[in-house]
């Protein structure tokens, strides 16, 4: 059902005027990595489109509200439109104050492997960005030496290599409004960027305030130490 809303979401992308996204796949990297990293909002918006089309039907992200999308550059009207296109468990359309919750699916539908909540999945895994990317691009045919458990799929990015989730992304699952080619690595990289934002939405603000605070305290420390040395020298 959610695939129907993808064009609507795509139309809402703010960065549609921008040219093709810069190549972050060779070598694989994300703008949010590193001490001074910040989110690439175009990538995070594309990641949200993939998330909403491919992940949200089974996974929840209960720490996120639809109103939080405004932080990604969506206008309140666009965020409200996205929310309204999502059906709650009781059939009513979601509002800005609802959390990211999939429609009620019985646990038995997942073969005993309940899809985890994705709000903080990337901070809860070492190297979360790479983890999600490797998992989404890690589906291959099982080697001959491996006997898969019933209902499991072979995935080189998953601990133990046998995962209960069928391959969610195959490439060209969405149409990006900014013209970026929706290859599997691009989609995986974008949804990884979106989940990084979901896990740590304050990263941009934290780094911004951090630079100012550290610079201020650096000069304060130098002045304070110089003052102290001058005062103590006068006792001699």
């Amino acid at each position, binding site marked *: 059902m959610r695939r129907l809303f993808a064009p609507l979401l795509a139309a809402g992308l703010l960065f549609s005027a921008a040219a093709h996204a810069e190549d972050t796949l060779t070598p694989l990297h994300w703008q949010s990595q590193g*001490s001074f990293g910040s989110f690439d909002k175009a990538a995070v918006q594309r990641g949200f489109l993939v998330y909403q089309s491919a992940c949200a039907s089974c996974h929840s992200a*209960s*720490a*996120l*509200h639809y109103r*939080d999308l405004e932080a990604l550059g969506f206008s309140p009207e666009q965020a409200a439109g996205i929310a309204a296109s999502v059906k709650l468990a009781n059939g009513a359309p979601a509002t800005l104050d609802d959390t990211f919750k999939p429609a009620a699916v019985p646990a038995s539908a997942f073969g005993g492997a309940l899809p985890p*909540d994705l*709000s*903080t*999945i990337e*901070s*809860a*895994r*070492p190297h979360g960005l790479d983890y999600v990317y490797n998992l989404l691009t890690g589906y291959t045919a099982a080697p001959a030496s491996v006997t898969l458990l019933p209902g499991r799929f072979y995935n080189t990015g998953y601990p133990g290599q046998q995962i209960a989730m069928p391959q969610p992304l195959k490439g060209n699952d969405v149409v990006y409004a900014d013209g970026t080619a929706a290859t599997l690595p691009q989609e995986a990289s974008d949804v990884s960027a979106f989940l990084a934002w979901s*896990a740590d*939405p*304050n990263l941009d*603000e*934290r*780094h911004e*305030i*951090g*630079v100012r*605070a*550290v610079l201020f*305290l*650096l000069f*304060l*420390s130098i002045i*304070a*130490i110089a*003052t*102290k040395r001058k*005062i*103590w020298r006068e*006792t001699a």
Partner: protein
Amino acid sequence: MSTDVKKSWLASRLPCPAKETGNCAPTLERGAPYLARLPALITGAALLLLASGFVLAVYYNPDHGFASIQFIARNVNSGWLIQGFHATGATMLFAAVYLLLFRDIYRRAYTAPGELVWLLRVKLFALLLLVGWLGYALSDGAVAYWSLTDAANAATGLGGAAGVVGRWFFGGPNGAGTLARLEVFHAVLALAVLGTLGAHRCATRALARQAKPKHPVSCHPYYTAQTFAAFAVFALIFAVLMFFAPHYGLNPLNRAAADSLIIPAVLSPPWYLAPVSAVASVFSTTLGSIFGVIAMLAVLAALPWLDRSSPAGKRGLVYRLLMGLLLLDVIGLGWSVSDPACTISGSLTVFFTIWYFFHFLVLTPLVTALEAK
């Protein structure tokens, strides 16, 4: 009026704190190092934790501990900043306390007449470990949940008086209501930390009054300038950690919600609890672990009497060498429980624990007695 006109309005009515006002008299030694300001930094960090903890307590919901911290970080205005102050504040406070204790041991500052100050510092450390663990349990992450479950199950399963205390503290095995109790204990014991800091301040002031400085200087401007510089550098390190490495020394698996059906692969505590957690893990029974932790703190408290040299005795070369080994030993203790992938980490934990007690109970009396001659 018979009131002494020389006394201030307050001093004539409330004499106790008024005694403290005379402390900027020139009784302080010139040339004290910056590290001598650690108690002030510890008090500052504790006050910051109290203020930020107050804000967190207003929003914290013990029925949904993890979700409510997510709510604070995402939906409360500047909540992530306050939560960061509290989390990084704990790291900075523990770093300062570890440094203070180690510096005291190295300088043998615990010898007479400094025993009471030393005892209060060990008490402060013990209280902080308890408050720190309670705060860690309140984070309600996937790892903290199992630490709390283990502790609550073990404590409620104890027999005799220990079991009575354990059941009273946790109110039974980990379940609905446990975090609500721990939130109260976390806050109340935090106030006990402030009380201990107050007693410590009085004791250090009394010690300073006894000392006869060779080059006395007044508190202001000499010590105020030094304290200000110390605070500036402390805040600088604080800001670097908080804004650019907010999860340094913490187990990343704890940043997922707790699940009563999933035990995380790595169950390591925050770095500041790791050495104590290592000693507790050496013993196979609950009472053994409790005994181990108490013994670990007790040998620290007994240090003024384990040291057999005279108070003015010099630090010999062997003693200083042992200090280096002790530092490596405590770091090793913490590291050995943080890296379960290392196959010999279990044996290393036992070895480091034995060395810790060997250092304090055998080597310290022996070496100080020999070097005092």
